[in-house]
């Protein structure tokens, strides 16, 4: 396994790391691209992208993790292109790079949280994408979403203790809002980026899923059993995904005893193993 860093994109301002097998390249295998999760940089929550990239390299896959402009180490764009458009364009530029430099002809996109939303958008627009893993896609508020989100907190004594002690995220948010702007400035653009990114409409998501399943793109949906995202799946997406499952083009994985970002090591191991299996499965199908 070897890794290299580079800059790519229209202005050579997007920071990327490519991980690849040390032996002969598996050109017949799709190349994998990891998309930013929220405002976290390309290594992913708990460094999951790095761990998975190396596991995939052991299975013969080339992969790239990079930062969208304005996130991680990549410079902000100079033009006013909305984030949802630039994210898709930059993902496709990443595909172009892997196609020209590594001979990749097809791609798998992997995204956690808002990365899943962007993976779905890019996959819908680029027919080179043959599979996409949507991990904890967060952005489609289903009926009961807010109630579901807060129910566990309300029932959790620790959350109350933290709130009363002034150490909860809620207090942090309130403090941040009341702070002078010079003391803790939000990352320029980052907050609006995420606000935009996490709110694709229900219709948009369903239409994108339908387009992908009709095209025969393989879907891997992964959820944390307790997360509001899984509630969204059951309320909004299940019916659409079941049709693809019936055709063997979608799989659903639900991981228990974990959180939205797979903090426990056991959950990370499970996630990495199942995604590697899925990638191998899609590659085998594509090779036929």
């Amino acid at each position: 396994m070897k890794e290299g860093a580079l800059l790519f994109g229209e202005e050579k301002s997007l920071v990327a790391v490519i991980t690849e097998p040390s032996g002969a390249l598996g050109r017949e295998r799709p190349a994998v691209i990891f998309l930013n999760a929220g405002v976290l940089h390309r290594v992913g929550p708990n460094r999951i992208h790095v761990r998975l990239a190396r596991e995939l390299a052991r299975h013969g896959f080339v992969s790239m993790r990079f930062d969208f402009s304005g996130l991680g180490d990549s410079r902000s764009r100079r033009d006013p292109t909305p984030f949802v458009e630039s994210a898709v364009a930059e993902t496709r530029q990443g595909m172009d790079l892997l196609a020209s430099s590594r001979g990749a002809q097809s791609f798998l996109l992997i995204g956690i949280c808002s990365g899943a939303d962007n993976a779905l958008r890019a996959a819908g627009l680029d027919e080179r994408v043959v599979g996409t893993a949507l991990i904890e896609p967060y952005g489609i508020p289903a009926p009961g979403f807010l109630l579901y989100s807060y129910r566990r907190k309300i029932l959790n004594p620790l959350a109350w203790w933290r709130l009363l002690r002034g150490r909860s995220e809620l207090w942090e948010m309130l403090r941040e809002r009341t702070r002078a702007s010079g003391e803790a400035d939000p990352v320029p653009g980052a907050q609006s980026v995420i606000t935009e990114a996490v709110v694709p409409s229900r219709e948009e998501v369903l239409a994108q899923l339908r387009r992908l399943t009709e095209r025969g793109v393989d879907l891997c949906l992964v959820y944390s059993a307790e997360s509001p995202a899984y509630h969204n799946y059951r309320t909004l997406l299940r019916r659409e995904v079941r049709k693809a499952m019936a055709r063997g083009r979608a799989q659903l994985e639900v991981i228990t005893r974990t959180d939205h970002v797979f903090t426990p090591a056991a959950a990370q191991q499970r996630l990495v193993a199942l995604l590697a299996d899925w990638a191998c499965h899609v590659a085998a199908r594509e090779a036929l």
Partner: protein
Amino acid sequence: MQPFYFGDSARPLFGVYHAPRSSSRRTGVVVCAPFGQEYLRAHRSLRELGERLAEAGLPALRFDYHGCGDSAGEGEEARWEEWLADTVAAVAELRESTGLSRVALIGLRLGGTLAGLCAARLGGVEALVLWDPVVQGAAYLRELRETHEAWTHEHAPGAIAQPNEALGFPLRDELAADLERVGLLGLAHGPARRVLVVNSGDGEGEPPLWRGAAGVEHQRFPPAPVWLPAEGMGRAFVPAQLLSAVTTWLEGACT
């Protein structure tokens, strides 16, 4: 900004070099990141710091320790002495690539501990900025374990908080034993020509470092949640006032 790998090809380190906008200064700055969840949360702030230093004419190198970020190795392999050697290697890389012999170090949290100990090991460091440094590894380890347990209980129902994990990152017994014994209190005085200790935490529990010692300054800032674990991933904060003050101080301390 240039991303690259450097150091021993058997265990390469990932770095980002911020080239200076002018070449008036003769000191390079190595930026030492914190560990684990704090590393993720603080990434954006350290990137901004690198850019500000470059803007001020100070070449800066950020890097990831072995088993962290984009560097080679897995978190399970992490050891303190290797991280210290990585920091020394980053200083050597910056000196070699810029041709500058003078160097300054900045470290945040556990990166502060590494920066301080690296400066003491190397000697002759121009300036050292310790941003909310971990002064006593044992206290940090205790805090890490308590936070991990609370987080797991609150956010991952049914999961058991394992002692060899720390908020999503491996914390093997060997590294824990290393952390138990490291700290800055063993250094009798500031290990650089000039030292700035920046405090933007709640100030609880940490003993003052080298207070009153020659060449050592302290600055306090309002608490900035740069590395606090917060729910979700949609929030990142850059403490502009603090970064500005650190950059200005380094401009004065580095010729």
